[in-house]
């Protein structure tokens, strides 16, 4: 993590108001000094990624804007994702207040500030600190906080419209279908609300989820959460393509922030889509994909490359070229068989195999210790953003039925969330749902 003494030096212990002013001025100067330009309304940050995939510690993204940050933002290195359930006693007013409180706190944290009026080390001496404190002295870390609404927020399992928003539920926001070989754990699936916190520093991401869940107590509680230690997708052409735990580059052909046409076509809900409160938002799919890496590691290189459809080293499609060369599925090899297998991952996931559908992937590698059989509990925490869940459903149904990779993966957790557009300064995420 690169130190940013400008931020470091001012964050702790100073009176809250002074701290905030000082931070704003100095952090701004820091950003300019680093040559980082922020396109505020989109949350797109130009030229932040270094070759190693890390962004500088002083990078910050605005919480407020047309779209929520953390979608087309260049994928940070770390993730803490959390799904919440509303408490059984929570009312519509509680939900609104929670979203307001979350938005206020999120905006502060994205600026590298502690939450609450007094922060982590000030305020009444006999009271617990408002901020939990572990992010003190740390830079902004490129933190983004992205909030979404699950189908059950609108209508719960018993059919109840707990918050008077059932009529606002997007038609697309229903439970995902059962995909072949799904092995979902109820403890890792669903949720009324979700928060995706991404940062280049794991502690900053964890600090965000920790404080937001603390703020939620009494109104909502954690249902499940997931840490991701390494990004597996690039969402900007300035980023190097990272590798997943199969050892292959992942997300080479992802939608990139620098492709505004694709982003508006495939990621953002348009003004012609219903409902109106989702315009500028997106749909988030989360899938906890367990990889049986022990079995994978016993597989011949030729088989691994056949399954993926790319070379392991360069990441070039087997039809030839370099990493970013478009795969050519028509190229035939020996015995007139396609060089890129018909059931390879790259082919089945390609827009050509899915009626042109594309999604923006933003997944992370995870290793959560090991299971009772002594296998690493490892895999990919898949996150994708799309204009309609149908984009994901079509692609995933195709993959789940045919993908050669299925022998080595298992989907064990799942969530679908409507991510509303960004909030205006002074408002809160999801305000449109209640107007």
């Amino acid at each position, binding site marked *: 993590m690169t130190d940013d003494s400008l931020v470091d030096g001012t964050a702790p212990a100073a009176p809250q108001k002074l701290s905030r002013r000082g931070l704003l001025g100095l952090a701004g100067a820091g950003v300019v000094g680093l040559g980082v330009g922020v396109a505020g309304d989109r949350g797109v940050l130009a030229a932040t990624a270094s070759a190693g995939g890390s962004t500088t510690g002083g990078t910050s993204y605005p919480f407020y804007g047309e779209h929520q940050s953390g979608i087309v933002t260049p994928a940070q290195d770390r993730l803490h994702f959390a799904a919440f359930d509303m408490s059984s006693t929570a009312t519509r007013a509680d939900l609104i207040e929670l979203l307001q409180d979350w938005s206020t706190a999120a905006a502060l944290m994205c600026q590298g500030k502690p939450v609450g009026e007094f922060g982590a080390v000030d305020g009444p001496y006999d009271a617990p600190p408002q901020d939990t404190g572990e992010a003190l002295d740390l830079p902004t870390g490129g933190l983004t906080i992205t909030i979404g609404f699950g189908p059950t927020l609108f209508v719960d399992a018993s059919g109840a419209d707990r918050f008077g928003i059932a009529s606002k539920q997007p038609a697309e926001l229903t439970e995902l*279908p*059962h*995909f*072949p*070989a*799904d*092995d979902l754990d109820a403890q890792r699936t669903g949720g009324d609300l979700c928060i995706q916190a991404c940062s280049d520093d794991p502690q900053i991401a964890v600090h965000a989820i920790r404080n937001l869940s603390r703020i939620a107590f009494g109104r909502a509680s954690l249902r499940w959460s997931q840490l991701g230690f390494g990004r597996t997708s690039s969402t900007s052409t300035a980023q190097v393509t990272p590798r997943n735990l199969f050892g292959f580059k992942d997300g080479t052909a992802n939608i990139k922030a620098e492709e505004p046409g694709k982003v508006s076509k495939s990621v953002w809900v348009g003004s012609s889509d219903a409902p109106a409160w989702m315009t500028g938002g997106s749909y988030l799919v989360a899938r906890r994909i367990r990889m*049986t890496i*022990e*079995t994978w590691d*016993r*597989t*011949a290189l*030729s088989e691994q490359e056949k399954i993926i459809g790319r*070379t392991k*080293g*360069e990441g*070039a*499609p*087997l*039809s*030839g*070229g*370099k990493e970013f*060369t478009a795969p050519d599925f028509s*190229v*035939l*090899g*020996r015995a007139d068989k396609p*060089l890129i297998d018909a059931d390879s991952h790259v082919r089945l996931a390609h827009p050509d195999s899915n009626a042109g559908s594309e999604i923006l992937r933003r997944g992370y590698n995870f290793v959560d210790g090991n299971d*009772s*059989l*002594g*296998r690493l509990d490892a895999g990919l925490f898949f996150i994708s953003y799309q204009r309609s869940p149908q984009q994901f459903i079509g692609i995933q*149904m195709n993959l*789940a*039925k045919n993908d050669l990779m299925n*022998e080595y993966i298992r989907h064990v957790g799942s969530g679908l969330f409507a991510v509303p557009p960004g909030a205006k300064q002074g408002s809160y995420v999801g305000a449109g749902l209640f107007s």
Partner: protein
Amino acid sequence: MKATAVITTIGAAATLLALTGCVPNASPSDSAAITVDSSADACTVSTNTASSGTLRFEVTNSGDQVTEFYLLADDGLRIVGEVENVGPGISRDLVVQAQPGDYFTVCKPGMIGDGIGNAAFAVTGDKVKLAGDEQEQVDAAATNYVAYIKDQVAQLVTGTDTFLAAYLAGDDETARATYATTRANYERIEPVAESFGDLDPEIDFREADVAPDDEWTGWHRIEKDLFPPAAADNGGVEYVALTPEERSYYADKLKENTQQLYDAVHASDYTVTIDAISNGAIGLLEEVASGKITGEEEIWSHTDLWDFQANLEGARVAYEGVRDIVETKDPELVKTLDTRFGDLEQQLAAYGSLDKGFVYYDELTPAQVKELADGVNSLSEPLSELTSTLVG
């Protein structure tokens, strides 16, 4: 290196040198690569001579057509090593163990014709220890394994008939008692069924494998009916038993698919390649690792250890078929595999046998499952080298 293509030339290859993925004491990465640049009109090899032992050709396709690279014997015809399907811009390694002698190198952009840039290549130095004449062993292994497959599938047909007769007669007790033992004939040769595309899904899909609009048929459909789950284990839904008409529908399907399998392996031209045998052994152990050791295969009957035993027996047969060939190439590997096969067989025998029955999966303690999983890993890891050593 693509194993299936290697097989077609293995007989010729074995007499001179060999493709290898596993060479003790001489890791390919340690040896300096001989670079081969296959362009549209040239086949440029960085050297035309090398010392005997492990050679690594790093073939780069700088042309715009799919290319191949061959190392040919002194008659310029016999293929002793090759890489195929190298797309434009792609690099791929050919690792061979070379005896002293005269060879030719040639590239084949476009994969047609005699190739271009045919050039002499000399290997000097001492003779590398060689395998004996393999062709006979390879042929014998294939013949024996095909006979084994035919026998297992024939037994499966009669066993399935008996099982289905009881099921259709409503004699569920007999059907339950013969369920796991009948399936053993299938589990021993499952990779064979998988090689016929749609057959394995129709015969052996688990409920979770099925897409929403697809039909679920086969053994596990009937398993669920014979070992009906409590509502709590069935997504909260009360299981509804199949009607006699439904029973007969699924029974007919299973009978029909099993017969298709029988016909396929009894076709006059049915044969298996040597790597299909070794990959079968590897695949069967992976079946154990991914489905049986986790209790997912027989989620209603909990007869996973029966399948485990049958997979292990099938893997043992496949391994024994190629064992002698492998032994000449890597005696250490064979020694390890002999020991670990024995260990795992012994470990599993503590839980029963196909004749007397096994402990049900849901009666195993977590520690016992862990111990069995460790045993599977202990065998699977070295077993994964079987094919590359065999065709090497």
